[in-house]
Every structure is written in C-alpha cells, then in structure tokens.
C-alpha cells in the first residue's frame, strides 16, 4: 500500500520542478528549436519549389531555344534560296545584257566596218581616179613628148572618134 500512496514531499517537489522545467525549456529550448526547425523546413520547401520552377524555366528556355534554332535554320535556308535565285537572275540578266550589248557592238562594228569600207572604197576610188589621171597625165605627157607620137595619138583618137 505504501508503494501506491503518493507522498506530499515528492508531489510538491515534482510539481515545482516540473513547472520550472516546463517554463525554462519553453523559453530557452522549445521556442528557438521549434522555430528553427519550422524555418528550416520552410526554407527547404522554398528551395525545392524554386528548383522545380527553375527546372520548368530551363525546359521552357530549351524549348524556346530549339524553336529559335529551327526558325533561324528556316530563315537561313530561305535567305540562301533567295540569294541563289537572285544570283541566278543577276547572272542571267548580265548574260542577256552582255549578249545584247555584244550584238549591239557587233552591229555597230559591222556598220562602222561597212562605213569604213565605203569610205575606204570611196577614197580608193578617188585615189584610183587621181592616180589614173596622174598616170594618164604622165602617159600622155610621155607620149606627147614626141611630135610623131602626138600625131599618132591624135590620129588614133581621131580614128576612135570617127569610129564612134
């Protein structure tokens, strides 16, 4: 029976000591410890959330980059295509222009040549006529140095005139 009878002394000291312990621990231990644990849990949660967000952001950026790359590639292809077409057209144009120019030049040259030819022919003709006149003059002069010959010539000329 003694074992299960509370004694006043121990009850008193337990109550006093336990209340003191509760107050001391509450103030100096549980408050800071629980606050620190709570804070750390929150910061861990926050960090995890942030990591998740960063992961999503990363995925988004990667997707965006991919998209950009694709667009850039398409753009490049397009530009290259255009450039090629442009080049082709320029070359073609240049060719036709050159061809035209060439034909024109040839035409001109031909005309020039023709003209030159004509001029040359005309000059040649005039030269020939001058030369022939000179030759004729000289021939005549040489032939007419001699009286007999002059006579002959006149006679011949006259003969011809009579024939005509």
């Amino acid at each position, binding site marked *: 029976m003694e074992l299960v009878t509370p004694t006043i002394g121990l*009850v008193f000291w337990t109550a006093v000591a336990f209340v003191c312990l509760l107050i001391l621990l509450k103030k100096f231990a549980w408050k800071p410890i629980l606050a620190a644990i709570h804070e750390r849990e929150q910061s861990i949660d926050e960090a995890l959330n942030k990591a998740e967000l960063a992961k999503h952001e990363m995925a988004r950026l990667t997707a965006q980059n991919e998209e950009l790359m694709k667009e850039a590639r398409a753009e490049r292809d397009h530009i290259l295509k255009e450039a090629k077409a442009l080049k082709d057209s320029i070359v073609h144009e240049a060719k036709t222009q050159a061809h035209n120019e060439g034909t024109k030049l040839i035409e001109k040259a031909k005309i020039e040549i023709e003209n030159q030819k004509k001029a040359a022919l005309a000059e040649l003709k005039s030269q020939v006529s001058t030369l022939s006149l000179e030759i004729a003059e000289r021939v005549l002069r040489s032939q007419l140095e001699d009286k007999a010959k002059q006579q002959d010539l006149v006679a011949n000329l006259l003969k011809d005139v009579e024939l005509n």
Partner: protein
Amino acid sequence: MDCSHVFEFKVKRLIVVFTLFLAFLSVSSRVFAQGDTAVVSADTAVTAAHVEGAHGAEHGEKKFEPTKVIMEHIADSHMWHLWGHLSVPLPVILYTPAGVEFFSSGNFHHGEHDYTGSKNTYRLVEDKIKIVGADGQVDEAASSKILDFSITKNVAAMFVAIAVILIIFISVAGAYKKRVGKAPKGLQSFVEPIIIFVRDDIAKPNIGHKHAKFMPYLLTVFFFIWINNVLGLIPIFPGGANVTGNISLTFVLSLFTMIIVNINGNKYYWKHIFLPNVPFWLWPLMVVVEVVGVISKPFALMVRLFANITAGHIIVLSLISLIFIFKTLAIAPVSVAFVLFMDVLELLVAFLQAFIFTLLTALFIGMAVEEHH
C-alpha cells in the same frame, strides 16, 4: 480509443519474452517459494527487533530477504545508497506544527541514531521520519502532523534528470541559433528526429492544427519521462532511482495532463460530458460515466507509467537477487544474461512509456479541442 496499432507490433515480442521468463520461473519457482516464506517471517522478526531498539543483530549473519531489498530499492529514501555502508546524505526539510526543520539525513547514521533538532527529536523508522517523545518511544500522533518536504533520493534523482535535460536542450537550442538554416550536427541531429517525431507523429495526428500551443508541454513530458526512465536504468550513483516508478511523480504528471485537457476543453467537449447524445433515461448514467471518464483517463496514465517502470525495476532486482537466494556464483551468468535481456527490454519500455504517456496526453487534448464530432 484507436491506438491499438501502437501496441500491436510489440505483442509478438512480448509473448516471446514472457514465454522465456515463465519457463525460467517455473524452474526456479520452488526456490522462490521457499525464499518468500522466509522473507515474511524474517520481516516480522526484523520489525520486532527494531521496536526493541536492538540493532546489534543487523550486522551479524543475516538471512537474505529479497522482498525487503527490492522494496528498499523501489521505494523512496532519505539517503542515496552507494555501496556497502556508504551513502550520500540528503537534506531533510520538515514542516512541523512548531516550525520548519532543516538538517542532513546523515545525522540519523542509517537510522541507528535519533536526531534532536531545534523543535523535536526525530527517528528514522523504515525510512519514515517520526517524532520521538520524551519517553524514548515514537510519538505517532505528533508524527502524523509533520509534513516531509525532504530532498529525498527520488527528488535528488529528478533534479539530476532535470539538469541533464536542461543541459541537453539549452545547448541544442544554442546550436540552432548558431547554425541557422544549416543541417543539424552532433547532439542536435540526435535530438531533432525525436522532436520531429513528437510533433509529426504524436501532436499533429491527434491534436491537429492547434498542436503548436501544446508542443512545449508534450515535449517536456516526453523528455522528462524518457530521461528519468533511462537514468533509472543506470545502476550506479546519479541514476538508479525509481523516479518514474514512483506514484507521486506519475500522479503529478497525470494531474498536469488532466488540468491541461480540461482547461482547454471547448464547448463540444463539455457538451459531450454533460449533455451526451443519448435517450433521456440514460442521461443520469451517462453523465456519471463521462465524469468518471474525465478522472479515469489521467488515472490510467498515472498507474500505467508507475506500474511499468516499477515492474521493470522489480524484475531486474529479482533476477539479481537469484544469485543471493541460491548462494552460488554458478547462477550469476544466467542472472546476468536475463538482466541484460531485461535491461535492453527496459530501454525499449523507457522510450515506449514516454511515448505512450505523451501520445495519450495528445489524444486527450485532441478530444478536448476537437471542433465537432
């Protein structure tokens, strides 16, 4: 109550333990029986000798009395016995009708001498302080009027436990302040999982979102019981006292639980007690049952802790006593093996009882603060 899952996992292990223990007991029960009868007769003989004031027989060839030895270890004492005739004297504080007395228990010389204080002459009779009258006999009428507020073995052991708890947790709190936001380290990492266990597995599921208000009490109760239990398992000086196995201490703890539960009880709690949802003719009966329930819940807490820890101490001491009952060293290995086994089990019980006390306290608080049924 839906806390049967808590005990379930232990059942199988306990069955094994009890089978082993019963098997062992059945072998030695004959010896025990002999010892017990001897104890009873010896006990009466000793009290008779005490009354006559004959102390000479105590140091002679004496029969070993396991019940007396065990009960002395289980009960509170005015001295902290170390070994042999060496013990630590503890302060005696008496509140007598004549005034307060304060002296050292060393003055009693293990109860062999009377001590004359400023008010009365005192004698230690079976570790109770009695007033000795002018005729040299114990004055029972006067003795019943003194209130003993002495720092007894249990009070001193409790102070040691409190010092240990304060040192642990204030240093841990310091570590939290020093290492803000960092991972726990050292003692901190040992204590933190237990604190989180109390919060997440005891307080939150039973109390709900209002748990924060009760955390200091639950944590204090948990560590107070646990540290006291563990210190009680240490056989040498600062430990070894049966603090949590003392009904006074468990009475105070369960009283606090009862006060906290009833102070925080909301209108649903009180309605459930005084206006239970039953047919009117059952009402008088139900109110009585519910009011008894208010008291019986903490009462069960008180008895559970007391009985578990005391039983553990008794078993360990009984096993050790076997050596002296058989008067042979040959039984020592068996005793030591069983004591080792019991100590390991007690280590589990030390934690488990702290856990159950805290869990049930949280459960009762949860029932008192629950918003609706």
